[in-house]
C-alpha cells in the first residue's frame, strides 16, 4: 500500500556535474518498496512548480530510500538545493516494478543515462538471490559516468559504453550486443533508459525470444492512477492496442507488450 508522508533528507550529494544522490528517511515507504517502483516527490511547498516529480527508488536502505536524479529543470534543481534535515513530501511506493524467477541463473541489466537509477535495487536484489548479474551502462561521455562502482559490487561483469568513445566501448548501451556480449546467454534482460534504447533492445530480445522487462517513462501528474495522463501504448492479452497507466500498470512492462511508435 502506498503512503503520503513526510520524509526527512539525510544526505544529498552530487555524483557528477548533473547527477545527485539523495537519502531520505521514510520508514513507511521503505518497508513496502520493491525494485523498479517510484515515488512522487514534492520539490517545492509553495506551489511552483505545481506537480510532484516522479523519481525511481534507486535503493532501499535501512529506514529509508536512496534516489538518484539528474538536474534537468526547475523541480530537480529545487531538489538539488535541499540539505540534510529538510523535510520532503512523498507519495509511494508506486507502480509495478521488476520481478524475477528464483530459478533464473544469469540475467542482463541495461541502463542508459539516468535510467541506471532503478537498476541499483534490482541488481542488489538479484545478487541477494544468487542470480548472476551482468550489466551494461550507457553514457554520452566520460564526465557523465556515475554509479559504475556501486553496480559493480553486484555484477559479475560490467561494461561501460560512451557515445563519444571517451570511456569503455564506443557506442550506445546496445552496442556491446553486437559482439562483446551474447544475448543468448541470459534468462532475462532488464532495462531502463531513453526510448530509442528500449526500442532497440525490445527488438533484439523479442526476435530471440528472451524475456525482457522494460521500465518506461511518461509525463505524470498524479502518479497514483487517477488522471490517466501517463499512458503507454500496450498490446493486451487479446492483441488489442490499449493505453495503460505507466504509474499503476507500469512503469515496468514486458518488451512484448510495449508498442513503440515509429
Amino acid at each position, binding site marked *: *500500500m*502506498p*503512503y*503520503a508522508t513526510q520524509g526527512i533528507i539525510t544526505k544529498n550529494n552530487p555524483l557528477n556535474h548533473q547527477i545527485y544522490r539523495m537519502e531520505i528517511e521514510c520508514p513507511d515507504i521503505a518497508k513496502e518498496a520493491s525494485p523498479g517502483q517510484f515515488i512522487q516527490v*514534492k520539490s517545492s511547498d509553495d*506551489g*511552483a*512548480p*505545481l*506537480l*510532484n516529480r516522479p523519481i525511481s527508488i534507486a535503493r532501499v536502505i535501512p529506514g529509508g530510500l536512496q534516489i538518484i536524479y539528474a538536474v534537468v529543470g526547475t523541480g530537480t534543481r529545487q531538489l538539488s538545493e535541499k540539505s540534510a534535515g529538510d523535510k520532503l*513530501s512523498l*507519495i509511494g511506493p508506486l507502480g509495478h516494478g521488476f520481478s524475477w524467477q528464483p530459478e533464473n541463473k544469469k540475467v542482463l541489466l541495461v541502463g542508459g543515462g539516468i535510467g541506471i537509477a532503478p537498476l541499483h535495487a534490482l541488481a542488489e536484489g538479484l545478487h541477494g538471490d544468487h542470480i548472476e548479474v551482468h550489466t551494461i551502462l550507457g553514457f554520452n561521455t566520460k564526465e557523465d559516468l556515475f554509479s559504475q562502482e556501486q553496480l559493480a559490487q553486484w555484477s559479475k561483469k560490467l561494461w561501460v559504453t560512451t557515445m563519444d568513445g571517451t570511456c569503455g566501448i564506443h557506442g550506445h548501451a546496445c552496442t556491446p550486443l553486437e559482439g562483446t556480449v551474447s544475448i543468448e546467454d541470459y534468462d532475462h534482460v532488464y532495462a531502463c533508459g531513453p526510448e530509442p534504447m528500449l526500442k532497440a533492445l525490445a527488438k533484439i530480445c523479442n526476435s530471440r525470444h528472451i524475456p525482457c522487462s522494460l521500465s518506461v517513462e*511518461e*509525463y*505524470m*501528474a*498524479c502518479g*497514483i*492512477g*487517477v*488522471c*490517466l*495522463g*501517463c*499512458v*503507454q*501504448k500496450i498490446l493486451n492479452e487479446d492483441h488489442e*492496442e*490499449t*493505453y495503460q497507466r505507466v504509474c499503476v500498470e507500469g512503469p515496468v512492462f514486458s518488451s512484448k507488450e510495449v508498442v513503440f*511508435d515509429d
Partner: protein
Amino acid sequence: MTDKRVDLTTDLMGLTLKNPVMTASGTCGSGIELLPYMDVSKLGAIVGKGTTLNNKVGNPPGRLMQTPGGLLNCIGLQNQGADYFLTEILPEVRKVDTHFFANISGNTVEEYGILAEKLDVDGISGLEVNISCPNVKSGGLAFGTVPEDARSVTEEVKKRTGKPVLVKLSPNVTDITAIAQAVEEGGADGISLINTLLGMSIDIETMKASLSNTFGGLSGPAVKPVGLRMVYQVYQKVKIPIVGLGGIMNAEDAIEYLLAGATAIQLGTANLVNPAVGIEVIKGIEEYMERKNIRNMQALVGKAHG
C-alpha cells in the same frame, strides 16, 4: 478540536451532503483510488471519471503539460464505457459511504439520454452532465457553447432519469449566464462550473505543440479567478444551486467560491498534487466557520454579494 456548534451539512438538490467538499470528475478516479490516502467517506460527494456510452481509448500520449500555476490536459475521456462502469466499478463505489455522481458525455443529444437512463440505478446519487469537454472531437464542448443545444441536452437527460441532474458548464464562452439560464430552463437541478479553459503549449526544441491533441484544457490555480467570476455572475442570474470549481487548492480558495455563491465546491487538480487534500479542506472550512462564529454552511453561500 471540533466544535460541534459548526455544521457543515449541505443540502444540494435535495441530497444531504456531509459537507460541501466534493472531488471533481477526472481527478479522483471513482474515489476508490484515493482510499490509501484518506477516508473517502468523509467527503461530501465524489464525481466519477467521465463515462461515455462505449469504450473510448482517449488521445495518444502527450496528454499532460505543466504551465505556471496550471496543468494542461488532453486525456480525451478515456474510459471503458457505461456497461463496464456498471458491472465492474459501481459495486466498488457502493462500498464507500458517501454520495457518488456519475459524470456523462455523449456525441449526440440521444446518447446523453441513453446514458442517463442506463445510470438511473442504486448507488448513483445524481448525474453530472459534461457539456464542456474540450478534448474530444464531436459533442462535448459543442453542446456547452450554444444555449439552445445546452437546453436540449438538459431536457433529454431530465426526461430519462429520476436522479438530480447537475449540468457542467464550459468557461470557453462569451456569456456564461446565457448558458446557465438555458440549462435552468431545460430543467437542470444544479450547475457545476467551471470545466477547463482551452489552451496550448509549444515545445521550442521540437517546434511542435506539447500536447498530442494540440490544444488541451487548463486547470489549477491559474484558472481560479475565472471560475470565481463565473460563479459570481451565474449566482445573480439563476435560482438553482451552483457547484463551484476551478483552481481550488485549499480551504481559503473553497471559501471564496462559497462566498461567490457556490452551494458546494469540487477539488480537481488539487487531488493530483495532494490526494488527501479533501480532508484538509473540510477541516479548514470548519476552522474558518468557528473563527467567524458562523454556525451554518448556508450562511456563507453568496455572502460576497451586497
